[in-house]
């Protein structure tokens, strides 16, 4: 979230799109209720299903799954066309005046530089600003230059007419215009809309671009950095925010630092590339501090073993020959027999990843699989034959499977980062059952054994293993408190003020914030973003002061929020260029008091930079402003373009009806053998989407009696019209099949899913909850991801779970 749960109460309009907070985040949704009750806010829901969120909305619009970019692109066109934008905001705080290079173009659904063989844009150098002799971007404050971002964007979305958008999305035109007009009302400076989204935007082959389109909409309306505004990822698990912040992803290091590629052999060039100079005069370009964050990380990991002489252990970091080894890539390699070992820590991939048949075949080719979990999972039992639910030949599966019991939340101390970015400490309440142990015990135990084997026996490239800093009081099981102090970081020598020479911190003391980090090896910090969470004052994550003196919902004394305990990101943009809040009465967040920035939140800005210095609010970007034009940062191009899901019920992209190459995302990676098992609308005519229920959490709660009593048995949702066409009644057993397999479940026939008229065809949606499997105390069911396609978003490779094709038959 750019903002946070409590801040929703400050919104004048709540748009829920690509999410269903009332059912998936019920308690967070209280803050929508609060906004409606006490801030006269309206709630607008756009979703293929009339969800429980929709049932309390002021306005609901149905939309075909996977067509959100068309909807949002049409809205962007409408706002520009009718001039309903926050003028002063976009002119001063966004890239609209920036002039783009001449070589940039967009024709027939493709940007310049496309290579069909590799399904990618290998050369994105023209997707950038024109620079002047000082290396600064050229701008045209009048916004009239034909290649300024404003003009390019206007041209790009001019094709998204209301009629065409309605044809693509299946949203009735009148209803769509009502939604657009309601949203447009928040273009005035004192009114804000918040966007709440979740996996309904993320899990598409164009998911990242859907989210970008939402962010662009918010920028046009001046809603980023504002109380009650922002683009808010609700997130699905209790600590995926924290685990992402800590960089547990193929290509990342903690704090959104990135691993080097093969061709980045030179350490200084690696740092320089990630520490860009400002692209406009007077801008901060905060990533210029990258080297400080990186060196402090390497000091936290490797201690005295790294120094300037060995480039802070640069060669010990693995280099990437691919953009990333994401889970689809890894399971494809496993399927091809190229992997031997795999670890699953609190994760159930055979249930959670697409195309179960492929995942099962892949796991069967492993030499060893290690599962760490508090519960029995389908993945740990993938080799068991369980009726039709898991129809495998056990004896032919030669994988050795280890299953290690772990603690659950109640049995350990530690912190979780919620979607508000709050690091909240929790305390152990009981011992785990039997011989279960925390994950740290397992990781420590494995590491120790590996290290002692490399010490005794030698082996290939043991250096990073032998040199890893492990100075914990109990090396077999470091405590959560020690680890938390390590990721915050400490001074390694007496830290002196460079100007006055005054000692700021003594050697060994905890750092109080990432502003103290240095790139000379004198500080360590395992995650710069978390620096400030455990200082000399103690564990700030454990704070429990819930007071809210300004009644803005910021509760700065509750837990600790990254970065720097700031609750709303980009909050400098909540004040106008002269430094005063756009709305001094109801939207007071930060302001310039004549000598410094202050406010009801921690200002996201240089504390002493006066408004007349003209520093822009988006300090992480070298240009200082927010981007409509993504430059070279997105796989499929600088502006979001609508492409169909890989399994499309209409078989063509109405924006480019004559070009099959751009029916679906032309820059999404598709593996050999996966393209062949995409289904077509002729054989599988219905649009399917998967989702969670209120009563269950993923594949865990089927192990709990209460949840299993509330929702005991697998079902699918069908609309009344579709059901009657197929002769299916409520309670009938139906078979839902895709080109990859089938599931059987009870039919729930509902008014909540209505047929949509899309591109001249009637499209029915089938709703498929995901919670059942072949272990648990609930009734056994089929793994829903038997059906889903093995293809991901063009940038993140998050699988397209939300849009695929199925056929439905009565059993």
């Amino acid at each position, binding site marked *: 979230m750019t903002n946070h749960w409590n801040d929703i109460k400050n919104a004048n309009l709540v748009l829920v799109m690509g999410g269903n907070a009332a059912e998936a*985040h019920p*308690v967070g949704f209280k803050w929508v209720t609060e906004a409606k009750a006490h801030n006269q806010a309206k709630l607008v829901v756009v979703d293929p299903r009339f969800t429980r969120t929709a049932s309390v909305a002021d306005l609901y619009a149905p939309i075909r799954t996977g067509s959100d970019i068309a909807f949002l692109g049409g809205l962007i066109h409408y706002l520009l066309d009718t001039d309903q934008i926050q003028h002063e905001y976009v002119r001063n705080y966004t890239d609209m005046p920036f002039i783009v290079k001449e070589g940039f173009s967009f024709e027939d659904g493709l940007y310049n530089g496309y290579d069909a063989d590799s399904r990618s844009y290998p050369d994105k150098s023209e997707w950038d600003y024109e620079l002047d002799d000082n290396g600064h971007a050229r701008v045209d404050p009048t916004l009239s230059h034909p290649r300024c971002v404003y003009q390019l964007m206007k041209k790009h979305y001019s094709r998204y007419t209301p009629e065409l958008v309605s044809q693509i999305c299946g949203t009735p035109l009148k209803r769509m215009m009502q939604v657009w007009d309601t949203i447009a009302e928040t273009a005035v400076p004192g009114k804000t809309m918040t966007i709440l989204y979740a996996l309904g935007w993320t899990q598409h082959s164009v998911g990242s671009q859907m989210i970008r389109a939402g962010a662009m909409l918010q920028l046009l309306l001046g809603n980023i950095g504002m109380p009650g505004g922002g683009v808010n990822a609700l997130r699905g698990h*209790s600590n995926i*925010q*924290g*685990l*992402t912040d800590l960089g*547990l992803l*193929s290509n990342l290091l*903690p704090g959104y630092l990135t691993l080097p590629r093969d061709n980045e052999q030179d350490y200084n060039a690696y740092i320089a590339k990630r520490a860009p100079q400002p692209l406009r005069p007077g801008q901060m370009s905060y990533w210029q501090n990258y080297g400080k964050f990186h060196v402090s990380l390497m000091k936290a*990991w490797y201690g005295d073993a790294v120094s300037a002489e060995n480039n802070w252990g640069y060669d010990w970091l*693995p280099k*990437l020959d691919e953009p990333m*080894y*994401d*889970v689809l890539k890894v399971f494809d*390699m496993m399927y091809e027999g190229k992997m031997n*070992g795999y670890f699953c*820590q609190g*994760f159930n991939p055979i249930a959670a990843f697409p195309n179960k048949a492929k995942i099962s075949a892949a796991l069967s080719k492993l030499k060893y699989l290690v599962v760490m979990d508090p*519960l*029995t999972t389908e993945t740990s039992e993938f080799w068991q034959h369980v009726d039709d639910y898991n129809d495998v030949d056990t*004896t032919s599966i030669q994988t050795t*499977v280890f299953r290690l*019991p772990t603690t*659950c939340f*109640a049995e*350990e101390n*530690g912190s*979780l*980062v*919620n*979607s*508000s970015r709050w690091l*909240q400490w*929790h*305390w152990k*309440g009981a011992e785990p*059952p*039997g011989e279960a142990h*925390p994950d*740290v015990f397992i990781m*420590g*135990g494995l590491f120790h054994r590996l290290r002692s084997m490399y010490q005794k026996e030698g*082996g*290939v490239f043991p250096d*990073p293993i032998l040199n890893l800093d492990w100075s914990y009081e109990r090396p077999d099981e470091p405590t959560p408190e020690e*680890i*938390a102090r390590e*990721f915050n970081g400490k001074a390694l020598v007496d830290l002196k003020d460079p100007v006055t020479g005054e000692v700021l911190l003594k050697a060994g003391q905890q750092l109080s914030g990432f502003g103290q980090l240095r790139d000379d090896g004198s500080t360590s910090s395992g995650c710069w973003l978390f620096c400030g969470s455990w200082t000399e004052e103690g564990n700030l994550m454990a704070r*429990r002061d*819930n007071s809210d003196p300004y009644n803005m919902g910021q509760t700065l004394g509750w837990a600790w929020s990254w970065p720097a305990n700031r609750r709303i990101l980009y909050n400098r943009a909540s004040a106008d260029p002269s430094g005063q809040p756009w709305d001094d009465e109801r939207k007071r967040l930060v302001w310039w008091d004549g000598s410094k920035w202050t406010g009801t939140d921690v200002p996201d800005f240089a504390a002493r930079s006066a408004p007349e210095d003209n520093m822009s609010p988006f300090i992480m970007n070298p240009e200082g402003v927010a981007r409509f034009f993504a430059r070279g940062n997105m796989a499929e191009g600088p502006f979001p373009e609508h492409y169909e899901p890989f399994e499309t019920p209409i078989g063509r992209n109405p924006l480019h009806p004559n070009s099959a190459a751009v029916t679906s995302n032309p820059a999404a990676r598709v593996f050999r053998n996966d393209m062949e098992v995409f289904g077509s609308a002729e054989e599988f005519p219905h649009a399917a989407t998967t989702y969670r229920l*209120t*009563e269950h959490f993923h594949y865990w709660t089927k*192990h*709990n*009696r*209460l949840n299993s009593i509330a929702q005991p048995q697998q079902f699918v949702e069908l609309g009344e019209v579709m059901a009657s066409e197929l002769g299916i009644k409520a309670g009938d057993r139906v078979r839902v099949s895709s080109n990859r397999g089938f599931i059987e479940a009870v039919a729930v026939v509902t008014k909540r899913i209505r047929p949509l008229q899309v591109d001249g065809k009637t499209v029915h949606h089938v709703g498929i909850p995901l919670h059942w499997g072949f272990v648990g*105390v609930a009734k056994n069911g089929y793994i829903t991801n038997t059906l889903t396609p093995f293809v991901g978003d063009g940038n993140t490779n998050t*699988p397209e779970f939300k849009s695929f094709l199925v056929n439905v038959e009565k059993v």
Partner: protein
Amino acid sequence: MDMNRREFFKFCGVGLGASSLAALGMTPEPAFADSIRHFKLTASKETRNTCPYCSVGCGLIMYSRGSGGRNVKQDIFHIEGDADHPVNRGSLCPKGAGLIDFIHSPNRLHYPQVREPGSKEWKRVSWNEALDRIARLMKEDRDANFVEKNDAGQTVNRWLTTGFLAASAASSEAGYMTHKVVRSTGILGFDNQARV
């Protein structure tokens, strides 16, 4: 006076009931105190925690039996929302309200186990055996397949034949430690739930 717990309550209850109800002009039944159930959270230990399901991060209070002493096993028997928490203000959703059943699920794992190739069953093993065997498998695979230089002669130091999928509800401390260990081995096939 020699009196057991039940008699003590009865005695007090009768005294209290008699004095207040008599004041209202009623004659209390002598057995009134028998129906008073002892408040079940009295003398329980409260521990603050955070819901491990979705990412709203609702505050919890876990109530357990046991003195908290060193040789006492605490037993959590009730969980409710933390009324001081600024987001949930005491409330929980149907999932969070059932958390006690997650802790005590019959499908919690109790011991390390191994399933050997082709086998149809689990075998209980000790932690030492499990971790020794896993570490040996890791080392064998790493030593056999670690790539120090690519075809172009560039230093790449990666290990691609073993992968690691990190959790979604593990604490940040567990996550940090996992990252530190996994990266030191050179693994690149490393993701967490945020990928999907």
